[in-house]
């Protein structure tokens, strides 16, 4: 008895395909003498689409849309060196635009060739293949990061699916890579290639196939246990089908050219699977059945893939490895035939790769393409003036001085005025490690010598409330050193105390007065017979520009009368025995 099972799959395949909107006959490509690949359409075989043939840098006004700029930065020296030459810092910026397209002449040539070859004047190349997806990849050891082997498409991304669209690529690199790239771009084949991976869809050629199944052999096949209700995993099913096909229990007769064999076998096996097995949930497999064991599944699948296993070729035709099935009780007997007809949707990748080549040879002297740029630009410069503090002043922070404010005034070339201040006290001085900066920028100061000039003043706050403000002083140095604005001075007293005793002087009082930054300071001392004069001197603090003090000496006599004398001194010596006449 012969069961004839007609399965019309063609309509299904075609419907799948029509949804794609581009019915390329993917196996009927024609390669023209100029290298252009053209594919006819199923809906009208006189209409062709072509695969873009060229990828390159975008050109505009005879210049490539490419630039490689190296920039040089001053780098502060970190090590003492006896060499006058040192390595500057910097890097490079590479930017270029790429596209893929096809020269019109090439298309015309291919069209003429197609008409001639197929003797049909109606043949027309309608346009480019529309890609399903597109990616670009930059192949370069210099531009790419190191050790990207595990991810070979590191520098890659989505690309346009229509030819003629441009994509821009930009890379920043360190000085060494910049140098390497510059040297590489002087070579015929530089270390930058760009590849487009373009995926397109089409349909296979028409095929017709018949599958003849010897159901008696299939039912009794030990591949599936030789009986119904046997539980198996999908890898076993596929291996069983392969075995049956090898033993001619399943015979496949394909009619049609360039059939995608693998896909067809998958369709056939899918159909057999539906006829012979029903899927089951793993948990429904009886416990006593060995196939429910994870180990069993692992062993079964592993065995199939061993060199001499049923799937030793490595083919997996679409089955999941460990899906579970239960064999049906097959009622078919004798030989059955199933017919298949149709076309398969199919996907292909088209690659366009090009190398940037020796751009330096042609454009190396063109500053629009290659340029080295020193990054020094006055507009981006800033002047730092540091405030330094003398050691003697540091000590005074604990005693005489509460703090000092330093003001900088910079009159710029564009008439702007920068006015900045910094307050320094004991704490701030400690935190700054002795370098307190005041920064001003460049405001149109094209004369850099002039830009260096500034004025500064200081405002001192002393303990006790005295304040001292200096006038603005012009300067051009990078450091404003602050010194104590006052000095210590000793005022010694001299005289013959015996002589004072003989003159009935009981006590001598010396009072000194002086100005200390606007505050009058006064001190006095009394001297009696027997005192040591060297212990009666004054220790005073005077502004640096001041030496004179005023003094008043009052002599008190034993009879209660007194005498007084006033004077000024700038030498630090007051005679107390010079009585008024």
């Amino acid at each position, binding site marked *: 008895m012969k069961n004839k099972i007609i399965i019309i799959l063609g309509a299904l395949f075609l419907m799948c395909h029509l949804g794609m909107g581009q019915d390329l006959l993917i196996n009927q*490509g024609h390669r023209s003498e100029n290298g252009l690949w053209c594919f006819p359409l199923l809906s009208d075989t006189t209409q062709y689409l072509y695969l873009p043939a060229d990828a390159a840098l975008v050109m505009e006004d005879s210049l490539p849309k490419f630039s490689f700029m190296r920039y040089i930065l001053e780098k502060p020296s970190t090590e003492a060196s006896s060499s006058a030459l040192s390595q500057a810092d910097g890097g490079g910026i590479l930017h270029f635009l790429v596209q893929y397209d096809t020269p019109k002449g090439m298309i015309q040539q291919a069209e003429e060739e197609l008409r001639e070859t197929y003797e049909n004047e109606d043949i027309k190349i309608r346009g480019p293949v529309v890609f399903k997806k597109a990616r670009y990849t930059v192949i370069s050891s210099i531009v790419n990061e190191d050790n990207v082997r595990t991810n070979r498409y590191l520098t890659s991304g989505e690309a346009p699916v229509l030819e003629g669209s441009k994509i821009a690529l930009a890379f920043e690199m360190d000085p060494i890579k910049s140098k390497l790239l510059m040297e590489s771009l002087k*070579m015929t084949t530089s270390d930058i*290639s760009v590849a487009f991976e373009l995926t397109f869809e089409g349909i296979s050629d028409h095929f017709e196939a018949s599958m003849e199944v010897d159901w008696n052999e299939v039912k009794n096949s030990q591949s599936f246990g030789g009986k119904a209700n046997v539980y198996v995993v999908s890898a076993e099913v596929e291996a069983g089908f392969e075995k049956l096909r090898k033993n001619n229990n399943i015979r496949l007769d394909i009619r049609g050219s360039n*059939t995608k064999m693998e896909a067809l076998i998958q369709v056939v096996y899918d159909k057999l699977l539906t006829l012979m097995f029903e899927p089951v949930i793993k948990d429904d497999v009886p416990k006593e059945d060995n196939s429910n064991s994870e180990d069993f599944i692992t062993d079964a699948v592993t065995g199939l893939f061993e060199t001499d296993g049923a799937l030793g070729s490595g083919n997996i035709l679409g089955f999941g490895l460990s899906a579970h099935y239960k064999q049906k009780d097959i009622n078919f007997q004798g030989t059955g035939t199933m017919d298949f007809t149709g076309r398969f949707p199919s996907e292909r*990748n088209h*690659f*366009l790769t090009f190398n940037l080549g020796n751009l330096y040879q042609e454009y190396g002297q063109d500053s629009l393409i290659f340029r080295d740029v020193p990054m020094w630009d006055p507009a981006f410069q800033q002047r730092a003036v540091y405030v330094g503090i003398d050691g003697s002043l540091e000590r005074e922070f604990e005693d005489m001085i509460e703090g000092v404010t330093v003001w900088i005034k910079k009159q710029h070339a564009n008439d702007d005025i920068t006015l900045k201040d910094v307050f320094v006290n004991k704490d701030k001085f400690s935190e700054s490690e002795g370098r307190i900066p005041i920064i001003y920028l460049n405001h149109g100061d094209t004369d850099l010598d002039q830009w260096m000039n500034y004025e500064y003043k200081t405002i001192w706050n002393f303990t006790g409330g005295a304040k001292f403000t200096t006038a603005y002083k012009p300067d051009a140095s990078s450091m404003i050193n602050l010194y104590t604005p006052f000095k210590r001075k000793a005022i010694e007293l001299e005289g013959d105390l015996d002589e004072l005793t003989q003159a009935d002087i009981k006590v001598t009082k010396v009072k000194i007065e002086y100005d200390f930054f606007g505050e009058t300071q006064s001190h006095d001392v009394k001297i009696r017979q027997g005192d040591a004069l060297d212990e009666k001197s004054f220790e005073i603090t005077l502004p640096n520009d001041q030496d004179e003090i005023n003094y008043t000496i009052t002599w008190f006599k034993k009879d209660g009368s007194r005498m007084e004398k006033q004077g000024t001194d700038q030498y630090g010596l007051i005679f107390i025995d010079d009585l008024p006449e």
Partner: protein
Amino acid sequence: MKNIIILTIISLCLVISVGQSNAQDELTILIPTPKDSLEVRLFKGETLPSGAIPYNYLPLHLRLSERDEYHEFSFFSYSGDNGEIKGSILHFLLVWGLDNEQRSYINQFLTKEVDSLAFLNRSIANCISDDHLISITSDNELGEMLGNSLNSQSGIAYQEGTKSAMSFKLNAETTLRMQQELEQPEAIKNIWLTVNMECSTPKGEIIQIELKDNLYHIFNPIIISKNH
């Protein structure tokens, strides 16, 4: 395929095998090379309205690509301040397929020996590759070092004539070894570049294609020009 009989033609240094009858479905031609021969398997396509008979060939002949008469290959080393080599960059582009000379050779053979209307059309279109990548294999240390130096590569297409690029960043040791190899090739004879494809013949037969050649052959044009 029942009627295929291999015909061997020996002329000077040329060995060709082909079916005896004209316009066979499949035939194999051996193209002589300086030291070996290149086997080309051809499959007949649909006869054109003009009566011309196209033949399509299985992918073969992985080689350096050319542009403006230069092979697309570069290898440059760089050194530090003291002149000591620090590393190098190796970059080259590959294509596969018959070159113009080989195409011309086969066309002459087809018209003369097969059918006056037979011509070489293109490579078989029905080929696929899983990852489109070129693999490096070897039985020596340099091959392993080179494999570890691969930085990036593009895929290779099933269409003949399309290019693929590979870029390697070599360390100092590998650089010195490669420099030596380009002068006196030895180890690179056992370093292989391979692309695997699966092609379907017009009759639906699946053929596993291994586009494979060693670096000595692939770099040969460079080695020759370097040493002469």
